[in-house]
């Protein structure tokens, strides 16, 4: 949206389209995956009963999905949206994996 370097209109247009495609990638599949992984991490980390943290994490995960989609379009560039959301998902995945490895599931 904001970055439209390039010499001709056509070039600028394609750059813009690529940028939008990256943002859609960040918002939809990556955004869903990252919010799901965050929900998993929260289900492990939140204080409370097992069923309680599970439901609370799912409730937060849904809201997070919308927030990440907004972030994907607010980020300075499409690439930035892709990597920030991927890193967030990766960190959540690591926390979840570690937590399950240490304390297991019911």
């Amino acid at each position, binding site marked *: 949206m904001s970055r439209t370097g390039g010499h001709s209109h056509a070039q600028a247009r394609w750059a813009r389209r690529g940028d939008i495609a990256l943002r859609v990638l960040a918002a939809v599949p990556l955004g869903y995956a990252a919010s799901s992984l965050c929900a998993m991490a929260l289900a492990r980390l939140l204080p409370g009963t097992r069923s309680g943290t599970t*439901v609370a994490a799912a409730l937060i995960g849904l809201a997070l999905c919308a927030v990440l989609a907004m972030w994907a379009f607010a980020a300075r560039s499409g690439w930035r949206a892709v990597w920030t959301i991927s890193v967030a998902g990766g960190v959540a995945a690591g926390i979840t994996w570690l937590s399950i490895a240490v304390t297991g599931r*019911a």
Partner: protein
Amino acid sequence: MSKGFRQSQGFLHTWSGLLLGWILFLVFVAGTIAFYREGLNRWMRPELARVENPMRVLARAQTYLAHKAPHAKSWFIPVATRQSAGSQLFWVPQPDPNAPKGSGRRGGRGRRDTQALIGADGKVATVRETRGGDFFYRLHFDLHYMPVIWARWLVGFASMMMLVAILSGVVTHKKIFRDFFTLRRSKGQRSWLDGHNAVAVLALPFHLMITYTGLVTLMALLMPWAVIANYTDERAIGAVLFPTMPVVERTGRAAPLVDLRRIAADAERRLGAPASSIQVSEPGDAAARITVSQSPISTLNTRTPQLGYDGVTGRLLWQSPPTGAAAETAGVMIGLHAGRFADAGLRFIYFLCGIGGTLMVASGLVLWTVKRRERLPDPRHPHLGFRIVERLNIAVIAGLPLGIAGLFWANRLLDIGMRNRAEWEIHWMFIAWAIAAIVALLVRPRIAWQIVLGLAGALLVALPGYNAVLTPRGMLDAVASGDFMLAGIDTAMFVVGLALLLIARRVALHRSVARPGRRAPSASSAHEERPTL
């Protein structure tokens, strides 16, 4: 708030709103109608008298089941109310030991031979076969003609887009409250924008609530990952969130079932609220158990408390344990979404807010074309994308009301004894809708709007007249007997029909306000770069 952020959200708002707007329109319309699901269940069965004595219906339901399915695995009896269409009970037969495993379908809901409708007089009612208002409830999230899981993912995805569209829409409006008090009439694009803002902002808390809580109703499907993180077997959390009375093996010793009216009265006294349904397992056996569920009209939480009784002695054996704060929160969110607790006044507000949401989606979709029409390089030959959106808008925004009018008329006109009648009522909705789509495709847009809206309006306006003359439950009869639900539904159809006719007329009288001189200076890429909305 930075300018760049607002612009990026404007882009997001426009496109997330457009791409799934047509599905959202259907979801909004069906959901809005479904607030009157119970009323429509009666409206679409005009043979059915209103229940005046719910306990008599319950007693007769028990008599009927004891005679018809004495050895069933379980019975399910909804407790009739003055608002319900009798009592639509069903039973589950004992599993056939000779049948191969897994061949039996769960429950008897879909099977006509294991269900019955008990009417106000306590007899099995012979009424026209129809899905009633329940159809709109299902259409709202299951759509139709497709596997329900696909439909729910699609609706869930569209709802998420809607949540994004609402949040980004709020960000986009710098002066959201001033926008709300601004309505510039007959100013083309500005009027559409003002109208879109007004209906969106007016019911903004409702839109946000209904969208997020709608996602919560689909949470187990859309966001199962939290459960997977904590449980190896998801039945473990199911047992906590949806507690049920411990099952007992059938003993084989016969024992008469206690009078269900007694159990219902006892449960209502203990719960301090009406009961909504009674489930009996192993009726007629010494191990019979009865579960009574509290009615969701009495509480915000849709997951209501349950009481379990011994089916022979009538002794209270079990109470559903509390499910915890988070589960209560989720239950209340679903309760807020479905509005089952809402009394007549609040229900009407739900309905009006639903109409607000419908208009928000519709005006947003139309705004997309209005905004772009003035900037088209050649307004006489718009590009393909523009034409697709323009025609789809007519096919959906005007076509769906025509389809629904078709459904209601099919409910009145199809032969009472017709095979698969209930399914054909629904086919007629889609046939009428398909006709609207063909008109939208073939006829010039301005004329197409008038034809489809006019037809839908005329059909809806005529319905109360038909009811008054040819059914025993027309508007006057309904008012005379104090049945304001049926009178209200007739009135709503008339008013909506009239509104559609007025819009059709308005389209006919409309003169384009686009003045050539006002067209934007350049028609090419300058616009592409400009944030939309």
